[in-house]
């Protein structure tokens, strides 16, 4: 057997190097600060849980995406978390069962996915997110969407666009119609906005409605107007009315935030039951985050057995790539033998002090070799000319 090159990592995994690691960490801290400012309290669940508890309730749809291993100590199967939302929901239902509702919790941490969403995609994803548990009101949905947009702005992402979805809407239109097992393929066709495939797979009675629903998607105002003209079942109509209420609340607070609606999208919203959303930024392919309303398991003995919850997750690698990068802090070389006060002077000026560990003949050359933009000279910083 040939040994792999020592630098080779498994598919979908990468080392994050300077300066990106620091930028990513700073972005996470900025997101957490936004959450904290609105009363969301930091929670740190572990990387591993018992498989049965992780994959029950909200975690159930994650089974295919979750790594498992056997715990030699307990001889039980463990799940490596593939999403943090089910962990937060579990904590809310158990250890924080007696905390007053609505409960506002936030988190930052890495999760592992078996496949990633496409070949070659990252399998380790850093998630920063917030969950609002115990309120079913539109105000809660609006708060979560606005919080996600604010966090992206704080990270430095510009031209954010929120795509609002009603994952259960297509199902309601199709409810009661005989699908002859075509439903999975039909749902996939809807997801891809594939008109011709939808027409081929949908029952005659629903095909026209589904096409109209695909077509109605777009900027919010036009989308609501188009949806109003579609003949929809009462339950679907109620879902759209609820979405309209949430949109009004969002627009009242953030009139400049671009909002679009996609009435047929449902992928990635495995556990979502109400309004859901995806976050995008113009010019950056792929989602920066995702969220929506779901049912969290309720504390023991609680009736009903689940409580309303809404939350979101930002994908920090994607958000980081879409963010405007802050100017890096200048590194200044502090020659061997300089005093503590000299170091403090560099730090007070807002720079980074990189200490020399031994005397060198050419201070400037040594400073440049270590990637410093300047060096300490007796009583001041000398910055080098570019090039």
């Amino acid at each position, binding site marked *: 057997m040939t040994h792999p090159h020592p630098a080779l990592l498994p598919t979908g995994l990468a080392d994050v190097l300077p300066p990106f690691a620091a930028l990513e960490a700073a972005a996470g801290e900025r997101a957490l600060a936004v959450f904290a400012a609105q009363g969301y309290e930091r929670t740190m669940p572990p990387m591993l849980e018992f498989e049965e508890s992780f994959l029950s309730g909200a975690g159930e749809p994650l089974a295919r995406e979750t790594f498992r291993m056997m715990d030699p100590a307990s001889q039980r199967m463990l799940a490596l978390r593939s999403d943090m939302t089910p962990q937060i929901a579990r904590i809310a239902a158990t250890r924080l069962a007696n905390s007053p509702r609505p409960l506002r919790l936030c988190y930052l941490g890495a999760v592992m996915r078996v496949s990633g*969403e496409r070949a070659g995609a990252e399998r380790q994803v850093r998630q920063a997110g917030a969950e609002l548990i115990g309120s079913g009101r539109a105000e809660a949905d609006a708060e979560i969407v606005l919080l996600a947009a604010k966090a992206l702005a704080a990270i430095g992402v510009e*031209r954010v666009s929120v795509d609002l979805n009603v994952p259960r809407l297509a199902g309601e239109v199709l409810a009661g119609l005989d699908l002859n097992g075509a439903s999975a393929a039909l749902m996939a066709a809807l997801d891809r*906005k594939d008109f011709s495939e939808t027409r081929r797979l949908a029952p005659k009675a629903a095909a026209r409605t589904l096409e109209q629903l695909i077509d109605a998607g777009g900027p919010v105002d036009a989308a609501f107007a188009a949806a109003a003209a579609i003949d929809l079942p009462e339950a679907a109509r109620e879902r759209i009315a609820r979405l309209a209420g949430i949109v009004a609340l969002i627009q009242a607070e953030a009139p400049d935030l671009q909002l679009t609606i996609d009435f047929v999208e449902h*992928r990635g919203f495995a556990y979502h039951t109400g309004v859901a959303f995806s976050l*995008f930024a113009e010019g950056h*392919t792929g989602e920066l985050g995702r969220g929506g309303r779901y049912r969290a398991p309720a504390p023991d003995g609680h009736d009903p057995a689940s409580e309303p919850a809404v939350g979101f997750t930002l994908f920090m690698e994607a958000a980081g790539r879409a963010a405007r990068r802050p100017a890096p802090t200048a590194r200044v070389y502090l020659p061997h033998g300089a005093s503590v006060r000299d170091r403090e002077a560099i730090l007070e000026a807002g720079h980074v002090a990189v200490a020399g560990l031994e005397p060198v003949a050419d201070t400037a050359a040594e400073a440049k070799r270590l990637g410093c933009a300047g060096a300490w000279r007796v009583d001041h910083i000398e910055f080098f000319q570019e090039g």
Partner: protein
Amino acid sequence: MSVIRLADAEPIRLALPKGRILKELKPILEAADIRPEAAFEDGEARQLRFKANIPGLEIVRVRSFDVASFVAFGGADIGVAGRDVLMEFDDPEVYAPLDLGIGKCRLAVAEPEAMAPTDDPSRWSHVRVATKYPNVTKRHFAARGVQAECIKLNGAMELAPVLGLCSRIVDLVSTGSTLRANGLVEIEHIADISSLLIVNRTQLKTRPRLLKAWIDRFRSALDAQAA
């Protein structure tokens, strides 16, 4: 014909496939009033990026199998790709909102004529298949409990059974004459194929008015042709 002039200056990149599909696409492009610069017509030119009569529009010409990748990763905002390619790549970032009704054919399983009469597909547990579409092939056979071992070829699939690489192939069939010429018969239909207008998902979400205007432009062109 309704052409949306408002959007004309906004930058947009269209990926078009080389070859057979491009020929069939020409009347649609004309009807949509999309006129690429002259060099685009020159199949020998080394140029890969082209201007057109619309100020914001750039056209890139790539292999038909690559259009979906360009659109999926945002290298192009819109493109024209066969359903066979979309089925093979099945990328969640690609939307396929409009069937252009060109490049029509079907994706099928074929095997040697001599083998077909005695072959009982219900007894298969494993098949070796030569194809350009390993993902579609594996899915198709797995759905009925058969494991497909694929030999990935990029062309001349019909040679594989003749020269003994394997017994079966999965390939595009239009008239069936190539199959016949090589002593093969079509034994299973996988899907009807045509070319679709595809759109990058993020683009549709973040520049919805512009992208919808472009989809409408192609849709109107199809309607104008049909009328």
